[in-house]
């Protein structure tokens, strides 16, 4: 029952905190952040411990694909459909579970400091709910259960992005995230229907072993991929992620960097055997992944909000992972998920620490020279920076290098993908260095007021930073956590890993150098811009489209046509009534004449019609 316990611990935290929240509300008292935070954090720590125990058991058990299975109850049984509610813990799940519980626990702790004075038990409720849902996603034994987690994390994300609900902009961002995710979710929903129709099962293990018809496999794969683009912010459904930065920064770190957005990778990795059945799907995935990586990297270079830069960076990194999955090297993608979780969480939390120190300022052009004033933050951020650049021996080096290598050598590898990814890596180095330099080096550009309050964050925030910094440094040495089937040797070309490593380091160096050159001197304030304007495009086409369709229906059908039908039929009856009334002149002789005419008609019918009289 260890897995079940592991999943339900956050739910327990959620329930306790919910009770605490309503209890305090009823007594008109502010709930204490420390109480709420400790409840939530201890639930997460306990879950992490459980995850470690389970991991140990998994290591200990023999067999090719060691799995821990726990079935709770049967969820839906109808006809051929049998959906069990249960959990499966294998290597892939284990990697994700450890990240979720581990990084999650750290971020919970961090939140206690970050949310002091502004948070409440509600916040920790949501955070725990998120973890519960995320664990369901990665541990669920069947697709509906994955879907439960899938939509559940969307819900938690919605709640947390809109956490500060007095600002309507935050609510709008939250809604946008939820809706774009919902569009993606449709893909998963439809994929389930197809799976059930053709495979007759929704169980993940059985499904993974099922051989689909080629065309079905393509459609299925594309639908799954659609779901993944929504959740993992890939083209075309990526625009919600930058807006999602409206939530508290720890949330961005946990949900929108480390865990939730990577669930697309999880699903692709989980269904890798099915996905791999169609080369079309793989091609689409790698192309979209590479394109997203490049596009987001370019956009990140033009952002001035510290969190937005990180957000685009996340999208870009997710693009790397997708590209890895697309070329048929899902384990490289998963590896990158893990390392990325460490260093991106670290970066976000560092950014959070900076924002916290500056009382909410997020514009990098209003920072600068914080190296001295926030030493812990600076050093830990440096670790994150190095990791994302892929500098040896930081974890990013290993995973990114592996992806670049696989892009060339994997079964579905492609030099184009490699090229794009490499260029993206260059840009990554550039914009991260830009950020790094703007925040921590140079002259202070703080406003008077913000400058006077700058202070290093409390221990409860620093400690997670340090731990994550260590993880970012060491994470890569553990190696690839999973072993998925990857066909080697049939790749486009075979290149030595060493060459790629060197190339990768070179790229990082060049990018960092360029970034440093540009931003180390006098700073020109740059306005934020979105070179691709995808968001505007969606707003103009999809948003306006739906609205105008709705108002078209509303105006011409609902208030128009349907009302007209009623009015016309009413008017027709009324007209008939008034028509029949016109003979009601009040003149008795008029009536008599009408009756005589009626009689005459009847008699004509009788005499000539019936009897043919007179023929």
């Amino acid at each position, binding site marked *: 029952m260890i897995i079940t316990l592991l999943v339900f611990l956050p739910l327990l935290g959620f329930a306790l905190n919910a009770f605490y929240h309503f209890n305090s509300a009823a007594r008109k008292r502010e709930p204490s952040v420390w109480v709420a935070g400790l409840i939530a954090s201890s639930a997460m720590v306990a879950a992490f411990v459980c995850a470690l125990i389970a991991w140990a058991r998994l290591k200990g058990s023999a067999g090719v694909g060691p799995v821990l299975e726990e079935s709770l109850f049967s969820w839906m049984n109808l006809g051929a459909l049998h959906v069990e509610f249960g959990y499966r813990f294998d290597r892939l799940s284990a990697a994700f579970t450890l990240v979720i519980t581990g990084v999650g626990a750290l971020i919970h702790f961090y939140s206690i400091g970050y949310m002091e004075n502004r948070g409440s038990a509600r916040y920790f409720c949501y955070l725990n709910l998120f973890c519960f849902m995320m664990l369901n996603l990665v541990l669920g034994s069947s697709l509906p259960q994955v879907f439960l987690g899938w939509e559940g994390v969307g819900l938690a994300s919605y709640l947390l992005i809109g956490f500060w609900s007095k600002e309507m902009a935050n609510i709008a961002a939250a809604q946008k995230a939820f809706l774009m995710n919902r569009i993606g979710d449709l893909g998963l929903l439809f994929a389930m229907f197809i799976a059930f129709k053709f495979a007759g099962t929704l169980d993940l293990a059985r499904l993974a072993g099922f051989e689909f018809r080629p065309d079905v496999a393509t459609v299925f794969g594309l639908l799954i991929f659609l779901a993944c683009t929504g959740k993992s912010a890939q083209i075309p459904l990526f625009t919600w992620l930058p807006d999602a930065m409206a939530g508290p920064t720890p949330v961005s770190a946990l949900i929108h960097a480390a865990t939730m957005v990577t669930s697309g990778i999880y699903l692709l990795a989980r269904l890798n055997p099915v996905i791999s059945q169609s080369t079309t799907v793989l091609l689409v995935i790698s192309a979209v992944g590479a394109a997203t990586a490049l596009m987001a990297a370019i956009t990140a270079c033009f952002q001035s909000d510290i969190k937005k830069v990180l957000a685009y960076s996340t999208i870009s990194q997710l693009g790397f992972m997708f590209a890895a999955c697309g070329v048929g090297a899902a384990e490289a993608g998963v590896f990158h998920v893990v390392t990325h979780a460490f260093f991106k969480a670290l970066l976000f939390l560092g950014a959070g620490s900076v924002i916290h120190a500056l009382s909410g300022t997020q514009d990098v052009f209003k920072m600068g020279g914080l190296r001295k004033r926030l030493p812990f933050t600076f050093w830990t951020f440096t670790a994150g920076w190095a990791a994302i650049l892929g500098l040896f021996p930081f974890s990013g080096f290993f995973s990114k290098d592996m992806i670049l290598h696989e892009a060339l050598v994997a079964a579905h590898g492609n030099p184009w993908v490699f090229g794009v990814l490499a260029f993206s890596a260059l840009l990554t180095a550039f914009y991260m260095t830009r950020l790094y330099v703007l925040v921590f080096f140079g002259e202070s550009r703080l406003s008077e007021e913000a400058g006077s309050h700058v202070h290093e964050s409390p221990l409860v925030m620093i400690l997670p930073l340090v731990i994550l910094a260590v993880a970012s440094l060491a994470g890569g040495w553990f190696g690839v956590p999973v072993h998925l089937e990857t066909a080697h040797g049939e790749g486009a070309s075979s290149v030595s890993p060493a060459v790629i490593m060197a190339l990768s380091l070179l790229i990082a160096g060049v990018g960092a150098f360029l970034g440093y050159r540009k931003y180390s001197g006098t700073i020109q304030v740059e306005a934020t811009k979105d070179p691709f304007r995808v968001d505007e495009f969606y707003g103009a086409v999809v948003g306006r489209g739906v609205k105008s369709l709705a108002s078209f229906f509303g105006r011409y059908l*609902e208030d128009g046509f349907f009302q007209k039908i009623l009015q016309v039929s009413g008017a027709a009856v009324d007209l008939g009534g008034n028509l029949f009334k016109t003979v009601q002149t009040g003149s008795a002789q008029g009536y008599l004449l009408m009756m005589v005419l009626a009689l005459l008609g009847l008699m004509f019918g009788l005499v000539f019609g019936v009897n043919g009289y007179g023929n």
Partner: protein
Amino acid sequence: MEISDSLSFLLTLPLFAMVLSLVVPRAVQRGYAIFASLLFLALTVYESSGILFATSAATAARFAVEHQLQWLPQIGAKLSLRLDSVSAWFVVMNALTAVIAFSSKGVWYRKSPKLFTALGFFLLFGLNTAFLSQDLIVFYLGYESVFIPMIFMVGIWGENQKASAVFRFFLMSFLGSILMLVSVFFLLSRQVKDGGAVSSHLGSLIPVAGGLPELHAKLAFFGFFLAFAIKVPLVPFHSWLKDVYVLAPFPATIWMSAILSKLGVYGMIRFVMPLFPQTMGTYQGVLMAIAACSVVYAALLAYRSNQPKALLAYSSISHLGFVMLGVFTMKNQGALSAIFLSVGHTMVSALLFFLLSKIDERSEGLDLGVPRGLSQQFPVLFTALFVVMLASVSLPGTLNFAGEFLVLLNSWPVSTLSTVVAGFGAVLGAAYMLKFYQQMGFGASSTDPGKQGAHAEDLSGFELVLVFLLIMAVVVFGFQTSIFLKGN
């Protein structure tokens, strides 16, 4: 099958309660109504517990009860009531809706409370007659008699300008139901022509309908279909709905959206499917398309509505489109999923209107404009509203998700296109429900707390317990689906 006359209690008790309500003093009228309906709910659940809690379809079938009472031998109509795994759900939902309706916004008890309670119990009676009857004439009687209390509830307690809405509601419903009656007559006359003994029992009409020539069957089918399509409503036949939902007092809106609409669903499952399987099969594609269009069309209009009640009204149409999609699969599993989703819809839409009525009580009235920023002020109320809203957008883990999922799963092989279209409706559903919640819940508070007087406190007491229990039911049954599916 067991012959029992305990079923007739399900009809006589509401009538008894109706008569009693005319005697009960004004001051305790509301308490009486809630108490009596709760008692009736308990009785109903007890009566149908054998079916409800059966673990397998076979067990449920064994608990099915049929009760026959000679009523109108001259026209071959019998009071043959049947409580089985189809009708049991609707009967229970009916009793439940009465509880919720009576507990909703209490303004009605300021004006002729006795009449209102009496009408409510009459409604309960009429609906139970319709849900239990296996005899088409008796079914029609129940089906049609439901209009009477509804008209008066909307007409007497409704908002201004309600008369034309009432007319629309009544005339369209009546048009449908009378054409259904003509279809029944048609079948009966056919029976006479075939030389059989006249009986309007479903069982004896099925062979008659089966023997109809194709064209006749189509026409007869159309009569039935129109009645139920208007009642549900499906989209081209829905134009009565919005105004009457908006203008009706909250209890009436709850009744209409939660249970009156189910009459259509029930009729389609219970009568149309067994009577006209071939015709329905012929038009299946069209029917599925209509259902899918209902989903999307109503969702778009809900998205466009700024008035919370209108929005919920359209959302009701939209969700019922899913239900009908399940019904039109014409498969056992599809129908079962549809019933499942119906139950979800009953609870969720009743709760939504119930909570909206509570918001209405606590603000200056919804007709004066949508109140804003209330979630800070009434955290419990809005949390409940949020959870119900999630159920309404069928978030996994709720009853509605399981229902909707199974419906779509079953409709996918039958008509993929319709299912895809309906799926997009689900996305829109999320959009308008979020808008609905955000409108009232978030932002800066628009109401002056000083103005609200006695109703300024949050949801509490009986209302809270009721809402909590219902929400728990929505969540628990979202996982414990076997209670509905019974291993079918």
